[in-house]
């Protein structure tokens, strides 16, 4: 349990962070308020064991964290994976925290030019705070207030880095926006804050993370994503997470969708020691929609505690929460699918579907659906299945010349394909390679 006496988090530290960043006074006040809330709130009362998270021992301001100096510091497993994926040198370095990536910098600039011409704001959070203080102020931590949970409050106190996206009315951003390394290195992605505001009738797809393993020495990652989709806007948010196995990855992600808006969450979780992630959508206006597609691959020693929530507060809203979890070795995978339908949300439709594929006898899984429906004029459904790879299937594929690892990864790929299909091509290809490698290792 966390120590009651002195944590490494102090008013002075927060003041220092805020001062250093040259923040407006209101932001400092919000940070300090979050700190007070953090101190009062209890640790989450469900899910994985977080007793090893020592708040006193975390460097909150990453400027002070030494970057990795050389290859030898990287875990052997990660170095091998980089090699097998055939990543270019520059990219490996960036992923290892060894330096910024030159190529992506160039891509980033050209994309930036293109979207800025459409009037889109796509900036590091710190810059946005300077350049567009009123816009940021109006939305920052309004979808997820610090009172929501202990890690939201922590984030509110110490956030650093991240991205701000604002899409003007009616503008459709064609290319998916990605947080390039330039942005990520600013906060080394520990407490980064991503805020996306889509004005009425606009659309945007944002991609975060990457499928190649990402090494960090920092043991706690607690980012936040807030999305505001105004009337008729469409926002899609894709995350691929493959943190190194020392990381506690405890994120908050939530969207609010106004009338006729659509928000899609697509999440792939591979890495970390412990992950808690439950992207949520508040369906606030008539006819708002959300899709929440999640896949996870847990291996030895991991506990991936995932979920999805749809909160229906308006009539004719709809939601579809789909998850595919694969568990290998002695790992644990949990999926919490929650549907809340308010009394005024007549004509709401919601569907939760979770399937798990167990690859080993020691693998553990739990699906925890919560359907809280407060009116009669709704259509809600829930399905959950747990299965194992059958010998029959495996032998069938092998009888056509696929070796066991190939056959296994094809079956697993097939199982997660409803989600993988929704992931941009380059990522999906790399994910496939990762799965294959993992089976090749397990089978030997």
């Amino acid at each position, binding site marked *: 349990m966390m120590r009651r006496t002195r944590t490494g988090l102090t008013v002075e530290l927060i003041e220092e962070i805020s001062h250093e960043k040259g923040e407006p006074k209101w932001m400092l006040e919000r940070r300090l308020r979050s700190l007070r809330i953090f101190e009062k709130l209890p640790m989450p009362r469900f899910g994985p064991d977080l007793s090893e998270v020592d708040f006193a021992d975390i460097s909150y301001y990453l400027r002070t964290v030494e970057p990795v100096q050389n290859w030898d510091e990287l875990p052997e497993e990660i170095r091998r994976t980089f090699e097998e994926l055939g990543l270019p040198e520059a990219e490996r370095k960036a992923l290892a925290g060894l330096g910024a990536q030159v190529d992506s910098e160039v891509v980033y600039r050209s994309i930036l030019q293109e979207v800025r011409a459409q009037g889109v704001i796509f900036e590091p959070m710190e810059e946005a705070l300077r350049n567009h203080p009123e816009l940021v102020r109006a939305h920052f931590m309004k979808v997820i207030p610090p009172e929501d949970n202990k890690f939201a409050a922590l984030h509110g106190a110490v956030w650093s880095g991240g991205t701000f996206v604002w899409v003007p009315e009616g503008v459709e951003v064609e290319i998916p926006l990605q947080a390039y390394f330039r942005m990520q290195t600013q906060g080394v992605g520990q407490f980064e804050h991503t805020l996306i505001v889509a004005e009425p009738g606009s659309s945007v797809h944002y991609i975060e993370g990457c499928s190649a393993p990402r090494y960090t020495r920092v043991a706690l990652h607690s980012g936040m994503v807030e999305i505001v989709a105004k009337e008729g806007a469409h926002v899609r948010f894709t995350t691929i997470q493959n943190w190194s196995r020392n990381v506690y990855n405890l994120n908050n992600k939530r969207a609010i969708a106004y009338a006729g808006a659509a928000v899609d969450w697509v999440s792939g979780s591979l890495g970390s020691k412990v992950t808690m992630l439950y992207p949520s959508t508040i369906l606030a206006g008539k006819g708002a929609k959300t899709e929440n597609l999640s896949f996870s691959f847990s291996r030895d020693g991991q506990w991936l505690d995932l979920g999805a929530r749809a909160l229906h507060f308006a009539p004719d809203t709809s939601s579809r929460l789909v998850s595919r979890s694969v568990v290998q070795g002695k790992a644990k995978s949990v999926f919490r699918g929650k549907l809340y339908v308010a009394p005024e949300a007549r004509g709401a439709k919601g569907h939760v579907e979770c399937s798990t594929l167990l690859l080993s006898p020691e693998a553990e899984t739990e699906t925890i659906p919560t359907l809280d429906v407060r009116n009669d004029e709704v259509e809600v459904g829930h399905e959950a299945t747990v299965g194992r790879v*059958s*010998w*029959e*299937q495996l*032998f*069938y*594929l*092998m*009888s*056509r*010349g*696929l*070796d*066991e690892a*190939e*056959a296994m990864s*094809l*079956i697993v*790929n*097939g*199982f*997660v*394909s*409803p989600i993988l299909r929704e992931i941009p091509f380059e990522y999906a290809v790399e994910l496939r390679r990762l799965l294959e490698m993992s089976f090749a290792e397990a089978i030997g």
Partner: protein
Amino acid sequence: MAILEVKDLVVSVEGKRILNGVSLSLEEGKVHALMGPNGSGKSTLAFAIAGHPGYVIESGRIFFVGEDITEVPPHERARKGLFLGFQYPPEVEGVRLREFLRLAAANCQEPFCEFQKLYREALEYLHMEDLGERELNVGFSGGEKKRSELLQMRVLRPKVALLDEPDSGVDVDALRLIASGIEEAARSGTAVLLITHYPRILEYLPPAKVFILDEGRVVKEDGPELAWEIERTGYEAVR
């Protein structure tokens, strides 16, 4: 020359002995029929030759083009040119037939462009154009599954094809297609072991030899007329 040779094969499944010393050999470019009552061990023999780990070879050997493959894992047997058409092909969700076959073909050293051509041609030949982009056997009808097996054989062009009841549950037109597909394969050199209950398919495809399996043993081996004899008199006469 015999391209596949099975010698005194004794096989058990889950501790129960199913094959009690089966010997047979298959010749290049010829069709061989394997008949026998339900439960006599026909599928067991096919699985054992293909290397299914659940079918334990207690004794006996399997030779493929002169090489002892008794201990070779199933995927390597396939890569050498052994094919098993399943009696009950399993469904594999999320895996597309094309994608799967492309991987299989690549493992069998089939160049990609050659695969594309073969695949298109095979789909057309078997009237399966609508199934080409579907998931592997998922929701296929019984007859469609049988055609899917034959399609896979056509694309992979094996040296030896063990076809477990390719004619069960298929309509007349499909039967004719399947038979002529098998005949073509044989003509191009494939040795075929055709497991069947019905002499009808053999009308299209006269076998060089008919083997009768009963209680895990080959009890008779003769020319094509044997199939008709069985049809008339049942298995009693050969026991």
